[in-house]
């Protein structure tokens, strides 16, 4: 198993080089001279030439890439627009996203696992049908529309929570509910499917035949056995949220990393886009790897199978 984990960790290196090369190439295709964008339309040719030198815009692609990577690793890399070190702007944004993602995923877990277990326990009844329909609604719900609906109800009508921004506890309620509800569907469906499978297993029947109460068998023995696959799906969703919450961040004006990157794309700020996407992708693959390793450690079948 150790071998397998080491291989997976080593594979991160080509993946990350690939991501950085891909995003670096995409950004080079941008129309327009970034030096002109920085200097303004009426800058003298000398100023533009100087900026081109400063940002190494005349060097060959691979040299530009090497310089960029070096500056990123030393943390010197600066935003083309604000001239500030990128990490100084980016880290607080990333923390905001992390905060939103964490609260959202907690909501999704509580709702999702509860609904999934209830549906499985009442399989094929009307309760099951209603719960599963709700889960499917969640999966099909566009986050930005749900966000708008929640704003209409809780900000415009009831005036309970602010419609946007990030000030105090109240401001995180609507965005995290929005994301939480859409993610809840995946977790509920997974939980139900796994629970249904586990509930037909012999050890559950044995536990029941010993006269243990149904409720206890479901929550204590069956649920314990389905937690691993559920953790996997939660991990994947969490990794995705670190960059993929752009839409929710836009609806609610949440100052997170997704919106920071999208704003930078609009402003043609190469450096911010590159560093931002590389960072998001890095966390995404790290979270995925962490989940896979956890899975391997916890599931004895995989552990034995590979050793």
């Amino acid at each position, binding site marked *: 198993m150790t071998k397998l984990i080491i291989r997976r960790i080593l594979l991160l290196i080509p993946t990350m080089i690939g991501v950085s090369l891909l995003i670096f190439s995409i950004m080079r*295709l941008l*129309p327009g001279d970034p030096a002109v964008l920085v200097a303004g339309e009426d800058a003298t040719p000398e100023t533009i030439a100087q900026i081109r030198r400063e940002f190494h815009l005349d060097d060959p692609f691979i040299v530009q890439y090497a310089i960029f990577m070096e500056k990123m690793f030393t943390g010197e890399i600066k935003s083309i627009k604000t001239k500030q070190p990128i990490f100084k702007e980016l880290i607080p944004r990333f923390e905001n996203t992390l905060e939103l993602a964490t609260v959202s995923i907690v909501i999704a877990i509580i709702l999702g696992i509860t609904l999934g277990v209830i549906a499985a326990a009442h399989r094929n009844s009307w309760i099951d049908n209603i719960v599963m329909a709700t889960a499917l609604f969640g999966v*099909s719900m566009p986050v930005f*529309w749900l966000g708008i609906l929640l704003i209409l109800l809780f900000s415009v009508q009831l005036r309970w929570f602010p419609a946007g921004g990030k000030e105090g506890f109240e401001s995180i309620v609507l965005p995290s509910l929005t994301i939480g509800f859409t993610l809840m569907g995946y977790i509920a469906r997974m939980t139900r499917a796994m629970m*249904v499978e586990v509930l037909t297993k012999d050890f559950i029947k044995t536990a029941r035949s010993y006269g243990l109460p149904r409720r206890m068998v479901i929550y204590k023995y069956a649920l314990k056995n389905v937690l691993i696959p559920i953790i996997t799906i939660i991990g994947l969703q969490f990794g995705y949220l670190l960059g993929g919450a752009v*839409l929710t961040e836009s609806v609610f004006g949440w100052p997170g990393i997704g919106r920071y*990157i999208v704003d930078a794309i609009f402003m043609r700020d190469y450096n911010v886009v590159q560093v931002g996407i590389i960072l*998001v992708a890095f966390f995404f693959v790290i979270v995925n790897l962490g989940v896979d390793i956890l899975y391997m450690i916890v599931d004895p079948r995989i552990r034995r199978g590979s050793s």
Partner: protein
Amino acid sequence: MEWKKIWKRLKKNRFAVVGFWIIIAFIVMAIFAPYIAPYDPNEQDLLASLQGPSLAHPFGVDYFGRDILSRVIWGSRVSLTLSVEAVLLATVVGTFIGAIAGYYGGAIDEVLMRTMDVFLAIPSILLAVAIVAVLGPSNFNLILAISAYAVPQFSRIARGAVLAEKNKEYVEAAKSVGENSLVIIFKYILPNALPPIVIQATLRMAASIMSIAGLGFLGLGVQPPTPEWGTDLSLARTYLEIAPHAGIFPGLAIFLAVMGFNFLGDGLNEVINPTLKDR
């Protein structure tokens, strides 16, 4: 399993049937938009700006005085066409890459699949935003941006199917009579991978409709004045306090269209992979 059998079982799956009819309704709307829509979707009646739902305008009027019902109907044409094109592109390219990787194995497999991993490492919406921002929001670029993330998923499925089949006797037999490798892959092996690819394509339709609307909402999708649900929603977001109706109907259309394809895709999955089937 033959398709006839799949169809027969699918008809018994409630969710799949609902999904199927929702999809049919949207297809009908898309094809007959000019005949169904009560108004020209771009006709502006500035005096009616932001008017709520009424008999003349059942879904109300948007900021520019355009009939929202007509825009929602026309919007289905834009969303469905772009999604179908994006999914077709991703299916063809992804299946091709995956089949080649699985069939030849070794270094080719490693290089192709690691390249696919790179695309999967960037959240789909960010990748799409970057591509559209750089190339410009034309319809072709939108299709490219949306399919970029779906290609790796199809390639994984096709690769898996080829790996499962390539050592079977009929493949060996085809090889021994000197059949061309590409003929073996596409004529003999891939038809066996069709069911999982069809499931994936159906679910991808849902994801594509969502992505197109998402890009539109960020201002990077189909450009105004073309009626598109996501773009219309982002306009409505600005006037939510005065005109809540404008923020409801385009979103409802996205939700229903996405749900239709999710229901059908799920139903297909349950019918084709009986392990998941427990209803």
